[in-house]
């Protein structure tokens, strides 16, 4: 058997496809047939020094994949399977893995380290394999350096896999001690040192207590800074990665070290190789992120009770940091604008400069202006591009008061550079900078407009002309036009863009038809801009928007004509259909918003729906989602008329609700069900059996992404409101599900911010479902069916009130549910309601809320309760 496995593993890496396929199938069969034996023989292969390195490595990787998966439900399944394995087999496998850490073969050691961490990730939280960390720690003191190296590597992976609360503080202390010792310059073997530095990167999350201890923190920081000056490039890079991580994890502890860190990061940015310099820049970007967050959260207004105070590191370093970053801008690579994945020191430096501007505001402007003025007219394109990029980077952060006068001077220069500069990079950055000018300094909230009747025409002309430039410049010109249009979003009945509307639309459509429109996202940018131009248009151009409908319909029709596409072509077709459906959605929403324009649009409704149905038939996930979004808007616009499309559309609706893998599609479809309920009201009833079945399945699935569950609950409310007392037949399924979800979401003790946000969205969904059901049954003879659920609903309201972590939306929905309860159940629930905490403290709190919509709901609820009690 063992021999056979070796051969299978080697064959599975064969260059001969059929051999590979056969081997993969056999391995799969083996795994399904006898999992314990399969895993055991893999661990045996990995541990066996007589086997080839290739088969050992693959054995380890397959073993690792049998313990973990990306998808949550699959991961859960694998964990359960491992935990249920026979204890003897497991301990044999683990012994083999630990033994492999001493192997002379580096790949075998490294693979074993990863597998051990995966097993630890499963077992340590279950309080199993408690001797692991002890035995690893004792390994470190063994002599052969390669064992020390692989052990440190294992400890690093372990810290990555296991959550800090599964490891006791004593073990954490010991792990950090051996790791930091391994990092120090006294460690002679560099492989050991590098493994230790990388291990620290993962162990930082465990070091909360140690970072609160001055002496220990001083020691860790000293060793990290030393490592950042190591002779070895890899050591320096790994050490700077640690500093980046420390910047965001322990920002508030950094003050004593900032002078040293500044010196070594500045040196690294200026002098070191790119891989190290990029991390040094990233350190400052992370510091900016932290300070931007703190300043945004507390508005710069510090009181004693805020968690973290801003130390203004960026502001203090500003005079030296900015020149260093400006220097990096001159290190551009040729063709970086054509390469999507490009990332180099100039890009990192520019990104950091933008963050610095957001962190310090006005103070950055005088430091950057001389650089711009000096370089913007130089013959070397690098200098012109760097100057332009610097200008574009500082447009977000400083106040409009500070920037507007500068922009007024620069705008003409930019417009001329966009058409006349001989260099494409300069034009690309110029178009991007114009976009940033319009994004941050143009709009109805600005005191001094930068776009005037005097320059509007010139701006439009230049941008439209640039749309015929090379694809990357044309795409950026579209982006600039996007923000130009957005700035006129609430301009009133008449928009300055109206005279150019037709010309703009034509230029954008032309751009989408360019043969090279697939490069640099040009086609996408052109359609997105068209969408924004339509969204921000006024009634003046409504007829022109209406004329656009058949044009886009024809484009969509043309995508459906292709036969027998290759998979590559199919993907492109799907993308284009997505863009066109997105465009139609925006148009439908625009024209559907007012009665007059809707009337004109409705003549196309049948044909548009026909196209959407054909797009569904092509089946591609992103299109599916875009067409679904568009259909939601169509249902909203059509109202009860939408009923005629339901027989044909229904199967796609059901398919969308079943799409667990692409949860966005499922989520969008759930929203469309709501649109349809509101459009059709009780005419939706014939479809409700199928829809309800699917929604309830979705709710009980652990495969479906959790973010879809709150909208599903809200959707139950939409169905109940539309169907009224006909919802009766679903009560016995829906109510228990709501009840158990309510119990789970009532308390948030110990949850982090993200979890609290999620819990609140879940609560909101549940409450909206209760509202819909209660309102739907109002004045029906069947309200007694709801009476048994009333105590639980009240209890839910009371408990989320006592938890004191509701957001405003939940508060409004919750107090509304209390009113619905009183309104629908009347005297049946009067006493019950009167005795609840919600009807007193919670209601009073809402009545005195500063939020108008909470107060409004509360006033209504008060009336409803008064009525219920006096009835």
């Amino acid at each position, binding site marked *: 058997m063992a021999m056979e496995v070796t051969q299978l593993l080697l064959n599975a890496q064969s260059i001969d496809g059929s051999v590979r396929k056969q081997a993969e199938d056999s391995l799969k069969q083996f795994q399904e047939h006898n999992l314990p034996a399969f895993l055991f023989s893999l661990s045996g292969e990995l541990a066996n020094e007589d086997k080839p390195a290739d088969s050992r490595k693959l054995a380890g990787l397959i073993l690792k994949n049998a313990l973990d998966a990306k998808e949550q439900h699959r991961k859960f399944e694998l964990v359960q399977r491992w935990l249920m394995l026979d204890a003897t087999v497991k301990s044999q496998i683990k012994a083999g893995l630990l033994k492999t850490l001493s192997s002379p073969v580096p790949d075998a050691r490294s693979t074993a380290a990863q597998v051990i961490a995966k097993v630890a990730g499963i077992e340590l939280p279950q309080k199993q394999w408690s001797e692991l960390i002890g035995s690893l720690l004792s390994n470190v003191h063994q002599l052969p350096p390669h064992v020390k190296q692989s052990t440190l590597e294992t400890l690093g992976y372990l810290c990555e896999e296991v959550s800090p609360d599964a490891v006791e503080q004593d073990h954490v202390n010991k792990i950090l001690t051996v790791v930091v010792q391994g990092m120090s310059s006294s460690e002679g073997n560099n492989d050991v040192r590098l493994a230790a530095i990388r291990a620290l990167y993962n162990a930082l999350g465990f070091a909360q207590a140690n970072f609160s201890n001055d002496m220990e923190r001083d020691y860790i920081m000293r060793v990290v800074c030393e490592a950042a000056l190591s002779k070895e490039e890899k050591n320096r890079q790994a050490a700077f990665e640690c500093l980046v991580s420390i910047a965001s994890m322990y920002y508030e502890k950094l003050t004593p070290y900032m002078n040293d860190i500044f010196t070594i990061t500045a040196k690294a940015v200026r002098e070191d190789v790119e891989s190290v310099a990029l991390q040094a820049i990233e350190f400052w970007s992370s510091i900016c992120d932290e300070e931007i967050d703190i300043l945004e959260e507390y508005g710069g207004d510090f009181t004693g009770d805020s968690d973290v105070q801003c130390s203004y590191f960026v502001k203090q370093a500003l005079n030296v940091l900015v020149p260093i970053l400006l220097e990096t801008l001159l290190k551009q690579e040729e063709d*970086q604008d054509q390469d999507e994945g490009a*990332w180099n020191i100039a890009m990192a430096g520019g*990104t950091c400069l933008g963050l610095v501007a957001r962190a310090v505001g006005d103070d950055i402007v005088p430091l950057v202006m001389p650089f711009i003025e000096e370089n913007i007219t130089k013959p070397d394109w690098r200098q012109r591009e760097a100057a332009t990029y610097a200008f574009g980077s500082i447009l977000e952060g400083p106040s409009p008061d500070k920037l507007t006068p500068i922009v007024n001077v620069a705008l003409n220069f930019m417009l001329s550079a966009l058409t006349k500069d001989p260099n494409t990079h300069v034009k690309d950055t110029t178009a991007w900078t114009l976009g940033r000018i319009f994004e941050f300094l143009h709009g109805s909230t600005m005191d001094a407009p930068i776009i005037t009747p005097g320059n509007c025409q010139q701006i439009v002309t230049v941008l439209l002309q640039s749309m015929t430039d090379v694809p990357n410049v044309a795409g950026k010109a579209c982006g600039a036009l996007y923000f130009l249009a957005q700035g006129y979003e609430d301009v009133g009945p008449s928009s300055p863009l109206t005279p150019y509307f037709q010309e703009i639309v034509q230029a954008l459509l032309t751009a989408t038809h360019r043969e090279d429109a697939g490069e640099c996202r040009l086609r996408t940018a052109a359609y997105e801009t068209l*969408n924004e131009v339509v969204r921000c248009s006024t009634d003046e151009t409504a007829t022109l928007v209406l004329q656009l409908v058949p044009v886009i319909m024809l484009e969509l029709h043309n995508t459906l004509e292709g036969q027998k596409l290759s998979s590559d072509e199919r993907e492109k077709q799907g993308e284009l259909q997505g863009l066109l459906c997105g465009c139609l959605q925006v148009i439908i929403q625009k024209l559907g918003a007012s009665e007059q324009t809707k009337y004109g649009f409705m003549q196309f409704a049948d044909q548009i729906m026909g196209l959407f149905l054909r797009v569904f038939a092509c089946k591609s996930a992103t299109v599916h989602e875009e067409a679904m979004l568009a259909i939601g808007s169509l249902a909203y616009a059509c109202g009860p008329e939408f009923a005629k499309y339901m027989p044909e559309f229904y199967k796609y609706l059901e398919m969308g609700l079943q799409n667990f893998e692409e949860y966005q599609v499922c989520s969008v479809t759930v*929203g469309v069900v709501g649109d349809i309920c509101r459009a059709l009201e009780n005419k939706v009833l014939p479809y409700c059996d199928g829809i309800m079945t699917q929604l309830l399945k979705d709710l009980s699935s652990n495969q479906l992404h959790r973010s879809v569950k709150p909208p599903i609950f809200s959707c139950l409310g939409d169905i109940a409101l539309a169907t009224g007392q006909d919802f009766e037949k679903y009560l016995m399924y829906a109510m228990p599900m709501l009840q158990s979800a309510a119990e789970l979401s009532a308390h948030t003790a110990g949850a982090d911010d993200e979890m609290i946000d999620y819990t609140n969205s879940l609560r909101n969904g549940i409450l*909206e479902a209760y509202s819909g059901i209660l309102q739907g049954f109002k004045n*029906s003879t069947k309200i007694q069916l709801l009476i048994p659920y009333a105590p639980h609903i009240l209890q839910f309201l009371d408990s989320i009130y006592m938890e004191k972590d509701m957001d405003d939306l939940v508060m409004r929905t919750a107090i509304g549910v209390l009113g619905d309860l009183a309104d629908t159940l009347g005297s049946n629930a009067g006493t019950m309601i009167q005795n609840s905490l919600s009807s007193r403290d919670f209601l009073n709190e809402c009545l005195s809320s500063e939020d108008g919509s909470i107060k409004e709901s509360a006033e*209504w609820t008060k009336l*409803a309760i008064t009525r219920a009690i006096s009835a």
Partner: protein
Amino acid sequence: MAPPDFRRPFKRAAVSDQQRRRELTLERQAQSRHDAQQRVRNLASTIISLQSQEPDDADVVLEPYLEESEAPPKELDIRRASRMRGEQVRNWFARQLMLPEWMIDIPDNLSQDWYVFARPAGKRCFVVASNGTTVSRQRNGSILHCFPSALPNGAKTREPSGPAHSYSILDCIFHEGDQTYYVIDMVCWGGCSYYDCPADFRFYWLNSKLEESGASGPPSYYHKYRFSAVTHEKGLPAAYTDATPYVKDGLLFYNKHAHYQSGNTPLALVWKDVKCSQYVLDTDSTGQVPDQQQVVLELQEDGNLITSDDPPIIFARLNSEFIQQLGLHSGNFVRCAINDGGLSFVEGKLEKADLKYIGKCSRGRAFADSYSKVVFQHMARHSPLTYDDLLVAANKAPSDVEMAG
């Protein structure tokens, strides 16, 4: 080398258009859901409060629906009620106005608990603003005007002035002379119902909301008639003697603590004398003040002639032969004159009425007279309640100290 995942792609906007489309869609859906729920709540607060006060009428209103739908009878479906049309609406609104009783004795605590104001002469009506139009309906449910106004959702302007489905209902008197709607009470505003609020609160809100909306401004393209709130709080002497922009037709007394209640209520009272009204004594169908007081009563199945009060007061009884002879049916309104025997009271209650049958009323008639009206008219002819009587009561200190001995 690739940038860190969380860094914004170089020279790219922060949000994709698809993401923006998703978010805008979610926003629209959340708003539609909220609107749909608010619509049910607002409608509920209007209809249910009426239903609980006038159960019989509510049934009458909805009967036409119940024929169409399969729902069992006697069931009020709010979602259907929201789509009432034509005749149903007419019938429904006909029963919603709060009708003051005529003052036949002076309430206690007149100075403390009651507002008094001069009633404008004109057509009493409900003004309903919704869905971009404003409609005024008279007491019998018929439409007086259909026009644009600055009330929330009262005109089809570019900027919607409130949630699309919200509506406002005002209790008004249309005064022909200056083409103005004088608002005497507010029932709903911007989708929110004020039925259950005390009068002092309603009047306070009415004034501030009317001002805020611009409805009290001069007429314009989107605002055909001016709305003007009557001054509720000036006190008796001012209400009686001060000049008003409108022709007065008596004084109205409103109890400060009373909720808005459809139909007759003793918590709102009307009083008139010749100084403050041209119409103290009722006229007959020819517009003349008849020699003898006339009353309109409703004929019941058992032959009783009753007032419009709830419960009704029986004034007389017709025998079945007489009914057949005149071709009358139950539910008909009949006009009678009060003979010289007049009305006799024992301990404040009507004991006997000496009536003479005159004839059947015209079809336009929707209500019988109320008891208080008959009595007030009777007193006006024989021993009226005078302004001086009111003044004495208004100046009397409140009887807040009650000795228990």
